[in-house]
């Protein structure tokens, strides 16, 4: 022992070390693993539409933020737009698995063999507008991360965690968006996707979208959406445009119960309302790019309720007209 270097001793000491992770970590990992695998079956194929510009909004809302790639906030803001990272050490692993789908296989090879470089964009605390190399525009919601493969010519490959709204320029190269959960291929149409542990849904804004899940498929036209419930696709009409308010800054209500109105404002502005029950209170009106204060003033005028500021939010008082 006495002839050993101190670092050899450290090596041996640490070799014995173990530390019990917290109890819920195992469940979180297994759930995420299972969930991710299941969603791989869930695939979207957009049918070509006549639009020269297509608008796609994707919402991938994870219940826990732990699905997110850790932010690269260590880099200063100036550089965060173009920070290159080469993400997966999967690149170092042998490619054994043969994928049944040729498309998928090509993509895998692309990722493993050509060691592509991903450009990483973190939105941080604000909504960020990003121009892609092909001229497509992306609005990236807060706390979301977008990565795209350098080159961006033959295939436009994008990875997303969080939420984004795409203005995709139509060209021959397919626009493919992948998340930890699933994959969206865009040819030319407009749609909106929501995906979280309780709910997976596709909203069509315009054009036609084919949604596939396993052997089943449904075709959606404008303002229709479908959800994935108990592993079954279910088609429903009516699309709530307020879900896009983080990008459009427009919230429109028509005889909407006040609780829902407050919830929408809550989501958009990141504040809380302490409200009692306002079941019978309905609100009709549009907040078009209004600040929180402007919206509150408008609500007070219309409903006759009083909104009192308290820490981080508002207390709702009074009676509804």
């Amino acid at each position, binding site marked *: *022992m*006495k002839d*050993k*270097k*101190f*670092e*050899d*001793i*450290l*090596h041996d*000491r*640490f070799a*014995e*070390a*173990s*530390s*019990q*992770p*917290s109890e819920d*970590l*195992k469940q*979180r*990992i*297994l759930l*995420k*693993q*299972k969930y*991710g*695998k299941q969603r791989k079956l869930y695939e979207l194929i957009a049918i070509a539409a006549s639009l020269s510009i297509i608008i796609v909004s994707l919402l991938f809302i994870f219940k826990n933020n*732990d699905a997110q790639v*850790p932010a*690269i906030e*260590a*880099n200063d803001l100036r550089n965060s737009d173009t*920070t*290159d*990272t080469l*993400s*997966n*050490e*999967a690149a*170092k*692993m*042998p*490619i*054994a*698995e043969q994928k049944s789908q040729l498309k998928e296989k090509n993509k895998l090879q692309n990722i493993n063999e050509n060691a592509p470089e991903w450009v990483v964009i973190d939105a941080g605390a604000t909504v960020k507008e990003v121009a892609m190399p092909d001229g497509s525009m992306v609005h990236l919601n807060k706390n979301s991360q977008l990565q795209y493969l350098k080159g961006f010519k033959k295939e436009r490959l994008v990875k997303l965690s969080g939420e984004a709204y795409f203005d995709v320029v139509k060209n021959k190269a397919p626009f493919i968006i992948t998340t930890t959960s699933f994959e969206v291929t865009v040819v030319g149409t407009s749609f909106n996707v929501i995906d979280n542990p309780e709910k997976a849904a596709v909203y069509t804004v315009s054009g036609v979208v084919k949604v596939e899940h396993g052997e089943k498929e449904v075709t959606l036209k404008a303002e229709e959406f479908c959800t994935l419930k108990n592993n079954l696709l279910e088609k429903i009409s009516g699309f709530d445009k307020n879900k896009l308010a983080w990008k459009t800054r427009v919230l429109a209500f028509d005889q909407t119960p006040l609780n829902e109105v407050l919830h929408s404002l809550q989501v958009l502005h990141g504040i809380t309302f302490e409200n009692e029950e306002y079941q019978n209170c309905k609100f009709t009106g549009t907040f078009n790019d209004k600040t929180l204060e402007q919206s509150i003033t408008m609500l007070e005028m219309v409903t006759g309720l009083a909104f009192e500021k308290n820490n981080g939010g508002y207390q709702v008082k009074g009676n509804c007209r």
Partner: protein
Amino acid sequence: MNEQTLVEECKQGNQKAMGDLYDHYAPKMKAICLRYVKHHEEAEDILQEAFIKIFKNINRYQDQKNLTGWIKTIVINTSINMYYKNKNMQMNVDYDAVIGSEKHAATIADQLTLNELYDVINSLPEGYKVVFNLYAIDGYDHKEIGEMLKISESTSRSQYARARKVLMEKLNQLEP
């Protein structure tokens, strides 16, 4: 259940097997993470990311002999990707303290508790810490470290030499 059966079951998507694999490896892997990051929360973030990658890629695990090594590689790479990649690893700490004897440092390293050793490692400047961990404890060579951290092999060497000195000094200042 032996290791090979366990891996096969995991490849089939057996949740129980995955849980068992996790139970078996997670504590050791967390101990590794704790040398790269100071806090348990960060270590568990790494652990989560790493195990998801492990289960996702278990089909690609073919070498039937070194599962521990394979898992460890993923854990260490995940640590580096999450916390160190593209960071400036150069740490030019002015250094003129009396280092003291290497032998004494070794004696102390042997007598401190494991928790104290973690504190010593984590008190190193980050650039030193990661290079020291990779080289002295996790057994990578300087060429590999250079590739992992995107620094040159010689930078890795000189970082290691400095890290070693700083660590030795820190150990010599401690009385077990």
